[in-house]
C-alpha cells in the first residue's frame, strides 16, 4: 500500500505519460481475446473496445474505454470520449454475455461521454440512460474497474455493476474537477481546489458506498511497474469473478439494485 496522495497529486499521476491503458491491460489479463465491432445500428466507436476472451480458463466479455498512449492513438479513440454508438456497442455485448452466461468486465477510463452535434443527434442521453437501466437488470455478473479517470455519466454507463473496483490513484466524479470549478465558480483555474473538495478518490468512494475494492498500484503509480499493476488487477479478478459467479442470479440482481438504492444523503421528517 502506498502513500497518502492528495486528489490533485493523483490527478497528476493518472495523467502521467506511460500510465498503462486498456491496450496494455487487455492482452496481459485475458487469453483468446477476440475484438467484436459495432453497435448494429449505426457504426463502430473506437473509443470503446469490446470483445470476448478468457480469464482463469473461463469465458468473459470485456468492455473497455480506450485512452491513447500517444496523440495518434488518442485521435483514433477520440481521447476515450465515446459516442452513443460506443455505449450501444457495450450494451449489445453485455446482452450477448447475458445470453451465454459470461461475466462482464468493464474497464472504465474516460473524461466523459463526447459532447458534440453528432453525439446529440444520435441520442447520447438516451444511450447512457438505456445502459443504466439494462445493466441494472443484466442477468450475469458485472465487474467494473476504474483505471484512471471515471468522468461523469460517460463512466457510469459502464459502471452499473455488482462490484466496483478502482486502481489506487483512479478518480471517479460527477464531472471533471476542471468542469466543476468552471461551472460552480466560473473559474476553471481552480481545478485543484475542486479536486480536493469533490471527494473523488478511491478511498472517498469506498466511504460513500460507491466503490467496493481498491487495487494497489506500485509506488509512484501504475506507470512505474505495469507488470505489478497487471498482477494486482489479475489477483482481484481471480477473487471476484468466481465469487460473484457463485451467487444465484436473483440474489445477485437484488444486491445490485440495493447497492445503488441505498446511495443518497438526506434528512426525512
Amino acid at each position, binding site marked *: 500500500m502506498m502513500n497518502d496522495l492528495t486528489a490533485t497529486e493523483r490527478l497528476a499521476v493518472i495523467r502521467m505519460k506511460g500510465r498503462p491503458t486498456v491496450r496494455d491491460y487487455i492482452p496481459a489479463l485475458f487469453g483468446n481475446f477476440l475484438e467484436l465491432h459495432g453497435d448494429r445500428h449505426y457504426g463502430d466507436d473506437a473509443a470503446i473496445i469490446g470483445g470476448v476472451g478468457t480469464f482463469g480458463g473461463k469465458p468473459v466479455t470485456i468492455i473497455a474505454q480506450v485512452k491513447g498512449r500517444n496523440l495518434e492513438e488518442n485521435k483514433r479513440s477520440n481521447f476515450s470520449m465515446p459516442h452513443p454508438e460506443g455505449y450501444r456497442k457495450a450494451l449489445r455485448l453485455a446482452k450477448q454475455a447475458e445470453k451465454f452466461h459470461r461475466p462482464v468486465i468493464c474497464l472504465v477510463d474516460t473524461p466523459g*461521454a*463526447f*459532447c*458534440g*452535434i453528432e*453525439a*446529440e*443527434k*444520435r*441520442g*447520447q*442521453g*438516451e444511450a*447512457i*440512460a*438505456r445502459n*443504466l*437501466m*439494462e445493466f*441494472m*437488470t443484466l442477468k450475469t455478473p458485472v465487474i467494473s474497474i476504474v483505471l484512471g479517470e471515471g468522468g*461523469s*455519466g460517460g463512466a*457510469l*454507463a459502464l*459502471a*452499473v455493476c455488482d462490484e466496483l473496483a478502482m486502481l489506487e490513484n483512479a478518480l*471517479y*466524479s*460527477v*464531472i471533471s474537477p476542471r468542469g*466543476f470549478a468552471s*461551472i*460552480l465558480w466560473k473559474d476553471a483555474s481552480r481545478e485543484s481546489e475542486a479536486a480536493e*473538495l*469533490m*471527494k*473523488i478518490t478511491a478511498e*472517498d*468512494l469506498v466511504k*460513500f458506498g*460507491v466503490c467496493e475494492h481498491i487495487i494497489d498500484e506500485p509506488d509512484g503509480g501504475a506507470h512505474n511497474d505495469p507488470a505489478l499493476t497487471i498482477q494486482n488487477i489479475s489477483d482481484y479478478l481471480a477473487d471476484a469473478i468466481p465469487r460473484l459467479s457463485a451467487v444465484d442470479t436473483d440474489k445477485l440482481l437484488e444486491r*445490485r*439494485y440495493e447497492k*445503488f*438504492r441505498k*446511495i*443518497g*444523503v*438526506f*434528512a*426525512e*421528517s
Partner: protein
Amino acid sequence: MALEDLFKVVKDRSKADVKPKEPKAKKTGPGVEIPQGLLFKCPRCGSVSYRDDFERNKSVCGSCNYHARISARTRLEMTADKDTFTELDAGLTSMNPIDFPGYEAKIASLRESCGINEAIITGVCRIHRYNTVIGIMDSNFMMASMGSVVGEKITRAFEYATEHELPVVLFTASGGARMQEGIISLMQMAKTSGAVARHSAAGQLYVTVMTDPTTGGVTASFASLGDIIIAEPKVLIGFAGRRVIQDTIKQQLPDDFQSAEFMLENGFVDMIVERKNMRSTLSKVFRTHNYTRDGDYVGGGR
C-alpha cells in the same frame, strides 16, 4: 387579445411563476415583495406580451408557441383532476454530503422562495379520472438539478407505483446532476434507472413529459426511459450543454439544436404536445394501456 381582456381583474401577481428577465423579485421587508414585471418577453422569439395574457395562455408564448417554465405547483393544478393529489415524501430534505460551502444556506433560501422542499414534487393523483403516480420537477429550485432528495423521491415514486400497480407520469426539467453533492448525485442516475427498470418489468406504464429544460444527467437517466416520451413545444432537450459543445467543436450551433422538434426529428421523442392538450393526451395514453377510470383512489389502478 380581446378588448375586454384588458380590463379583467387579474390574479395575484406575486405568485407569478415565470420570472421576467429583469432582476428577480426581492424581499425588501417582512412580507413586502416588489411586483414582478407587467410584461413577458419570450426568451425564444423575443416578442413581448402582457404577463396576464401570457399566464392566461398557460404561460405559452402567443407568438412562437414556446412553452415557458412554470412552477411544479402550477403544473400540478393544470394537470391533475381537482383535489385529487396526495403528496408523497414531502418531508425529504437535502443534506451536504461533500461539505460544499454554502450549500445548506442555498437550499434553505430556495425552500423559502419556492415554497417547496426540493426540486421535485411527487404524489398520487387522477388525470381525467385515471389514477396515476405523478412527479413534477421545478426548475426554479436550483434548476431542478438531481441530488439525493430528487433521486430518492423519484425512486420511491416508482417503487410506490410498482407496488400499487399504477402508471407513472414524470414532467422532467433539469440542468442535470447536482454537482454540489458530488458523486452521490451521479449515483442517483443509476438508482432512478433501476427503479424504472423494476416498474417496467412489472408491466406498468411510464410516460415522460419533457419540459424546459431537460438536460444532462436527467436526460441520461430516467427522462429518456419512458415507454412514451412526450415533449412540450420549443423546449430545450439535450445531454451536453450548448456552451460545452461549442467550446468542444469550435463552431456555432443551429438555432433549433437540442429543441423538442430536433429531438422528434432525430427519433428520441414520440410526440410534441401543447400544454392545453396535455391532459387529454395523457388520458388517451392511459386508455390505450388498459388502465380504467375511477379505480380505488390509491392503488388498484387497473
